[in-house]
């Protein structure tokens, strides 16, 4: 790639670079008692993502900057963070879509224990995920395929897209103040099996979610729907689970 660029300097010059100011909310548990904001300047291309800015800071300016990322292409769900006050995946947010005339604020997602810089402890999030039994439960022996019509598959298609990045759960005002709430992501993944025609434990999951800290904690603020990097209609899914709890079946 680099040789191609060196052979065609004119084309490389044509792409306008710009300087962006990144305000990163740092926290080092060894030295800090409170998080603090730190300012960085980065040279960016319009097609660069916030993740590229974080890489540039970590690789060229301050190696102690700590954040999670794995695939860097919006599939693994590692780099959910609050960018300009909204939960986004750093690897799916282009710099050109942000207002570069002002600093870009990046901080860890809210509501989960802060470990360092942009890294939070995801365990409470995964604990509620495990509690909704997010796996297929069927009494029939798997000696042949479990058939399903296209309509039956479409019923829960939206909620199969979840990558467990926690952008939804940590955007929920109820979850910020009430850590016991299952949170949108757990309900989305319960929805994925509750409405699966092959699964036989819908009632069990509906019973788990028919709890003081279950679906009824949802206050329909739609922050989760707006935050989801996969475009899942999260509040819609929660509303469907609410209706199923009232009906008593999926």
């Amino acid at each position, binding site marked *: 790639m680099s040789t191609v660029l060196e052979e065609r300097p004119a084309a490389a010059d044509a792409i306008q670079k710009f300087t962006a100011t990144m305000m990163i909310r740092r926290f080092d548990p060894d030295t800090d008692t409170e998080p603090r904001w730190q300012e960085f300047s980065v040279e960016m291309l319009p097609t660069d993502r916030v993740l590229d800015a974080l890489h540039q800071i970590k690789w060229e300016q301050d190696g102690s900057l700590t954040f999670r990322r794995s695939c860097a292409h919006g599939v693994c769900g590692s780099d959910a963070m609050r960018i300009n006050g909204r939960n986004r995946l750093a690897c799916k947010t282009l710099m050109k879509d942000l207002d570069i005339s002002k600093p870009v604020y990046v901080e860890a997602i*809210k509501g989960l224990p802060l470990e360092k810089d942009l890294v939070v402890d995801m365990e409470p999030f995964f604990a509620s995920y495990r509690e909704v039994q997010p796996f297929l439960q069927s009494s029939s022996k798997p000696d042949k395929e479990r058939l399903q019509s296209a309509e039956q598959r479409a019923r829960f298609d939206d909620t199969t897209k979840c990558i467990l990045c926690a952008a939804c759960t940590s955007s929920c005002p109820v979850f910020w103040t009430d850590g016991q709430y299952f949170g949108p992501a757990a309900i989305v993944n319960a929805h994925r099996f509750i409405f699966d025609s092959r699964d036989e434990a819908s009632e069990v999951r509906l019973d788990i979610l028919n709890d003081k800290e279950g679906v009824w904690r949802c*206050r329909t603020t739609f*922050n989760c729907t707006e935050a989801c990097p996969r475009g899942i209609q999260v509040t819609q899914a929660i509303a469907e689970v609410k209706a199923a709890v009232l009906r008593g079946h999926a």
Partner: protein
Amino acid sequence: MAEQTGVLTGSPAPKIPAPRPGRVQGTLYRGREGMWSWVLHRITGVSIYFFLLVHILDTALVRVSPAAYNAVIGTYKTPIMGLGETALVAAIGFHALNGLRIILIDFWGNGTKHQKLMFWIVIALWIILLIGFVPRQLMNVFSE
């Protein structure tokens, strides 16, 4: 990426400003219509609750003595309380209309899909309600 990482050789150490003292608060979460309607719903709900608390107390006074009741109600006839009444009607109006929106979100199949539109309808109806009420109320408050 090559043109970005290649600049390192021989370039001066990057200047990193010291962390800013003081500002440690995180940013306010920037929700959209859904979140702000919920925030308004909470604020108006709690305000109405405190109004009802006082309202039940002062109305209960009539059982103690009608004279005491009249005396307390008489103290309400000030411009400040008149403005308070205006705020009260505004709060109840929003809470009622947005409450209908929340019921539709929960019980109408397409409710979640149209929640933003329904929020702006709530705001429009609310403003119409206030246009009908506020000028009249303020004329009453300040003419007496």
